[in-house]
């Protein structure tokens, strides 16, 4: 069963004071996220990621279309008891301590009061905030706030977890911890839907991703699938420090190391480049394809080319 079904969800805002002009934040979006997968929602800032998430959380009302989470309506309280949400750059009641904050959220989520204290402590431990249990949130660093945010999202053991830019503001250590936490969540059978503009994180974690730009879906699929369709690059290494003119004219990246030169050119120019090296009678050492990164795919999607939306 699809954990999250987005059925034509769209949002148009009216902007301007007198003559209201419509501004389309999200074109009708169709997506299905499967149970137990880690799904990445990628796009630059202002692409419509947060708008989509807010609509799913019931904070903003769609202009059209709908969605279901765990088969239930977006305003169903039974559904809300089974999801967790971490908003972007979260801020919490800073006069509360970490324990008080989680206790409050637990009460609102309907966690049984007898189990609540234990759950609060174990969640704080899990996100690495055990030492700050009784510290007021006003004294938390950005990284600590992010952890507190994750804590409140998972405290009540939800089936689906929504994270908006979970790595933002974290140092590399913090990011690694969050990544491993997300992997743990998947191991527990939870579905994780997170939005980000840091592609390396998505690449490392996600089973599938969707790319969105200017309110429109540009592509959906498994990371491997998506990157396979994109023209890649090859790396050519030869003996010598001179660069053939033909290669230079391709505008390729070149590095000289010792007495070898490496050049990275796009796949389509591979043959021409090899030919150029031989003509200069330079000794070809290796020709290796460079792995296509998600970034290449991403940048390709963001070019305003008339591409069809790849639907599943």
């Amino acid at each position, binding site marked *: 069963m699809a954990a999250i079904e987005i059925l034509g969800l769209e949002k148009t805002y009216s902007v301007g004071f007198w003559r209201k002009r419509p501004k389309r934040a999200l074109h009708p979006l169709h997506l299905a996220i499967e149970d137990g997968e880690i799904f990445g929602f990628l796009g630059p800032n202002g692409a419509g990621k947060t708008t989509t998430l807010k609509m799913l959380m019931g904070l903003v009302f769609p202009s059209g279309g709908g969605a279901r989470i765990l088969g239930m*309506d*977006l*305003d*169903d309280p039974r559904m809300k008891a089974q999801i967790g949400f971490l908003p972007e750059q979260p801020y919490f009641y800073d006069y509360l301590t970490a324990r008080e904050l989680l206790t409050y959220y637990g009460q609102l989520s309907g966690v049984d009061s007898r189990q609540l204290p234990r759950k609060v402590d174990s969640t704080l431990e899990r996100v690495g905030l055990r030492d700050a249990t009784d510290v007021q949130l006003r004294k938390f660093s950005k990284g600590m706030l992010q952890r507190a945010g994750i804590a409140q999202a998972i405290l009540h053991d939800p089936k689906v977890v929504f994270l908006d830019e979970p790595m933002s503001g974290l140092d590399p250590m913090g990011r690694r911890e969050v990544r491993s936490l997300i992997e743990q969540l998947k191991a527990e059978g939870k579905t994780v839907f997170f939005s980000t503009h840091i592609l390396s994180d998505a690449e490392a974690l996600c089973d599938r991703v969707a790319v969105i730009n200017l309110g429109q879906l540009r592509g959906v699929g498994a990371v491997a699938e998506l990157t396979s369709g994109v023209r890649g690059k090859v790396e050519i290494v030869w003996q010598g420090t001179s660069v053939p003119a033909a290669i230079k004219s391709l505008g390729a990246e070149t590095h000289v190391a010792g007495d070898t030169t490496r050049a990275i050119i796009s796949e389509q120019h591979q043959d021409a480049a090899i030919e150029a090296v031989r003509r200069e009678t330079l000794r070809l050492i290796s020709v290796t394809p460079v792995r296509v990164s998600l970034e290449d795919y991403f940048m390709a999607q963001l070019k305003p080319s008339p591409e069809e939306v790849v639907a599943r």
Partner: protein
Amino acid sequence: MKRTQRIAAAASATLVFSLAASTLLLWRIDQIRSTATLDEALYVTSPKLLKRLSLGYDGLLADIYWTRVVQYYGAMHRDGGGEYKLLWPLLNLTAQLDPKLTRTYEFGGTFLSSKPPMGAGLPDRAVELVEYGIRENPDNWHLYYDLGFIHYDQKNYSAAADAFLRGSELPNAHPVLKMLAARMAEHGGDIETARMMWTTTYEDSSDKDIRENALLHLRALKVDQDVTALEHLAEVYKQKFKVFPLSFRDMVVAGLLKGIPVDPTGHEYKLEPGGKVIVSNPDDLPFIVKGLPPGYVPSDILKSKPAK
């Protein structure tokens, strides 16, 4: 999203119901508290303190108290009059809050000094109020008129003349003040003086209640004149026919009258034995001194209403 629709419907229904119910309650509460805002005037032990507490908005507060004065007088007047016990405290507060509000003194001059049921019957307070007004507004000739009027009404003709004289010395004073000052001295009690006074009041005031009051006085003067004239004619009849006329018809036949005489309210005068003339409806003609039926007592005093 049926759930949100149900909540919206419930909220709208609650809103409409509770708003309607609270409005009905307001109406009831207003009834219970009908004199509450007016009684507040009695609790203000220090008008000066109230003025300071109003933090510079004393003008607005004075306006609010002034509306209370008008409403208080209007309501009591409609109910047939009384002692207007709260009139002095209310007027005093209004004057202290905004001494430049001259209608206060005009109103007080007329209705504080008039006797119940037309006013509060406190001429000394009326004088006190208007003299305060004169101290605060020394260039206003109309206040001297109001002061003189109170004295005139109390038959202190010399004090009235004095007030009119002082007022007439102001640069923009109405010429009538000089005239009245002169008349007061010699002919204070004359009907002609009274007619001049009330006509001036009627023409110069823009207050509805004051003008109505002046009109009633002018009518009373007319009645007094009529009755005097008619009784004189009855004497003439007696001289001629050795007996008093039995009815006005007799006097018409005798050529002394052209028709049955009618008072300013449109009702016929009545001729009593002994050549006395009375009015048919004394309740509609307050202030008359002549033409009252013998043993007449104003009916609202008879009703013994609780004095307010």
